């Protein structure tokens, strides 16, 4: 009895401290509002149409400055493009080929087994083209930022005018959700920046949601397989553990 009281007291003490400390830090950050993601939750899956729209936003808008180096063209079959479509998409780019017999460097058409090439040959070139700022690679962005997809969506839709009295540095834009609120990337999305093939109206919110979902897929292409397998494994374990418990009860019953 005493033991459980002391236990409760001790845990309560911990939680009170955590709570106080939590509120102190929470005030300093604006956390991104939670969005409804179709890929969230135990049974969440990606909407293929949305992934394709997201890829369109990436390739027509983001790809001007941001690379996607973990993704190969062949991976795009997983978002619902046909083999021929993927070949055609790959063939639109030129990649470095083998040196020819004279040792001169050559280029060739992209193939499905090539990585999606980035916009700049190296970091220095990227910085030079962007006023010193380095547009980060986007393949793992959803996993590489606190808040994940919510944060990305909030960032893409969080542009606005700086509040009065805030001193903005040259070339920076105000963003409510970017740490420090000054971001080198100008607002990337504007109404109808892309024309969707499936006729979805391209509002800033829609595009932000689509491209964020696409980037959630590039960060976790295994997500659907992982959850599918996980459900089977956990169901199996529940059954096995229940059986083990029954067996344990049975075996121990002859002791008393």
């Amino acid at each position, binding site marked *: 009895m005493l033991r459980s009281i002391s236990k409760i007291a001790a845990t309560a003490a911990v939680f009170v401290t955590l709570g106080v400390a939590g509120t102190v830090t929470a005030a300093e950050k604006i956390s991104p509002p939670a969005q409804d993601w179709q890929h969230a939750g135990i049974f969440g899956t990606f909407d293929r149409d949305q992934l394709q729209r997201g890829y369109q936003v990436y390739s027509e808008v983001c790809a001007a400055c941001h690379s996607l180096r973990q993704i190969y063209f062949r991976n795009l079959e997983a978002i619902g493009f046909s083999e021929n479509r993927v070949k055609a998409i790959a063939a639109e780019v030129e990649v470095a080929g083998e040196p020819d017999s004279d040792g001169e460097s050559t280029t060739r058409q992209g193939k499905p087994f090539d990585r999606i090439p980035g916009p700049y040959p190296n970091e220095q070139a990227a910085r030079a083209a962007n006023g010193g700022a380095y547009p980060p690679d986007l393949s793992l962005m959803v996993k590489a930022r606190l808040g994940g997809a919510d944060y990305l969506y909030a960032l893409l839709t969080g542009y606005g005018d700086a509040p009065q009295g805030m001193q903005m540095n040259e070339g920076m834009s105000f963003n409510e959700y970017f740490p420090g609120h000054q971001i080198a990337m100008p607002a990337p999305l504007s109404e109808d920046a892309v024309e969707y093939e499936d006729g979805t109206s391209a509002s800033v919110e829609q595009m932000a949601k689509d491209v964020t979902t696409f980037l959630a897929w590039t960060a976790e292409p295994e997500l659907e397989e992982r959850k599918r397998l996980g459900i089977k494994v956990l169901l199996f374990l529940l059954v096995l553990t229940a*059986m083990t418990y029954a067996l344990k009860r049975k075996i121990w019953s002859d002791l008393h």
Partner: protein
Amino acid sequence: MADTTVPTGHGHDEDSSRRDFLLTSTVVVGGAGVIAAALPFIDYMNPSADVLALASLEFDLSGVEEGQSITVMWRKKPVFIRRRTSTEIKEAEEVPLSQLKDPQPDSERVEKPEWLVMVGICTHLGCIPKGQAPGDPKGEYGGWFCPCHGSHYDTSGRIRKGPAPRNLEVPPYEFTGDTTILIG
């Protein structure tokens, strides 16, 4: 494990048979789980997606003239592609099968008689036969010659003389266009 000193408890028959049933079924289910858990580990060592993506490759043959050969790399192996002359084709087709160590008609070794496609690795001990470059020795049968142990291959890549046991291997391939070929 049969002779453990487990107290048998009350020893009711019903009770112990229920216990045995539970024990057997739990061990079976648990064992199945262990086996299933081993499968991902085994599959982990199979060729990965990036390796498989390079398993079948398309090549453009439009630059190859009659009588010329090119060597392309496929699955880390050299593949000989030869645009045969009509004489070479004729030679290859007219050899009686009885003269061959590894009897196989030329028609079985080519999709189009004009194009001979095969893995350029000697079936003896894995050397690369000569005969691709214009100045190379081509062996006694006008095809390829392996300098390691003196195997002679004919214009269909079949073994004619020397220690190699089999004809040069023909990889799976298909023509996806007049002059484009998909190997693998």
